[in-house]
């Protein structure tokens, strides 16, 4: 007679339906019956362990945090998105103005433009995080600006690099 394995006995004690063979075995085998009773006992003990509850005022604390978060959410995404657009437009303007002046200005513009691209990416990410019609419009605008900015950068890099122009000629 093979015994019912420990894990199965636990499952039976936790409410799993025994099959006919297991019922017969539990009636006939004192060892398994004892193990089963022990598992049932532990289950009963575990059910009586008092459980801690959240402290008084916790609900209010979370509610307050909600209210603050809702307040932030109403303006956060548009601010970030508009900020991203402004951050993109500014270096693009600088870029256009300084494109055919001295090298230092161009290098500075590239650095600012790179930073702005990062800003746009961040704004984009946040706007996508809470989509809405205005949010989506801003996202599209930012994507277009991003592509435009990349195009201007590529063009500028080509213009200012005599080697590439030479290669084309």
């Amino acid at each position, binding site marked *: 007679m093979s015994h019912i394995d420990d894990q199965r006995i636990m499952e039976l004690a936790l409410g799993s339906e025994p099959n006919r063979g297991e019922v017969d075995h539990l009636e006939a085998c004192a060892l398994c019956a004892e193990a089963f009773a022990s598992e049932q006992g532990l289950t009963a003990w575990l059910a009586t362990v*008092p459980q801690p509850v959240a402290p008084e005022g916790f609900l209010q604390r979370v509610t307050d945090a909600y209210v603050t978060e809702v307040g932030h959410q109403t303006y956060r995404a548009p601010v970030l998105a508009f900020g991203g657009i402004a951050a993109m437009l500014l270096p693009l303007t600088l870029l256009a103005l300084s494109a055919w002046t001295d090298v230092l200005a161009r290098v500075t513009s590239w650095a600012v433009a790179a930073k702005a691209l990062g800003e746009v990416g961040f704004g984009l990410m946040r706007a996508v995080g809470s989509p809405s019609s205005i949010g989506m419009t801003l996202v599209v605008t930012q994507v277009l600006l991003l592509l435009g900015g990349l195009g201007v950068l590529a063009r500028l890099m080509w213009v200012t690099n005599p080697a590439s122009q030479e290669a084309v000629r």
Partner: protein
Amino acid sequence: MSRYQNAVYRLCLRYGTEEAQDLAQETFMRAFVHRERFDPTRPVLPWLLTIAKRLCIDRLRKHKPLLATDDRPLDPADEHPDQESALATREQLGQLKQAHSKLADGPREAIALYHWEGLSYDEIAKIMEVPIGTVMTWLHRGRAQLKKALSEAEVTAVKEDAP
């Protein structure tokens, strides 16, 4: 939220008593911010507990290991008018809880989520991000360790009572 606050708070408590309230609050805030990720066809509690567990683990990784014990006094005496038996029950429940808090993370959480939060194997598996078989093994191993701890405590008590 009031329906789930205790379960979330308890899970955070098991991972770290000092910051349990902060972590529980953070859980609800994350759930609120990322509410669009929740599948309304599924139960809320496992989702919340998954967020809570991840937050707790992140916190544990960032900071020093937190205490996982809950030493607050138990008060089952209300349910047991007989003082002596209430004391014995109290002691045993205390031992059981202490033994539970000393279990490894997996078995400890499996037992707590199954017995105290009433979750299914499947839900626990999703929260703990392990296969169902692992949950069952944890449950079995944890219960075996609890039984051992309880029987050892009984033996000690009998020895102390002996003249």
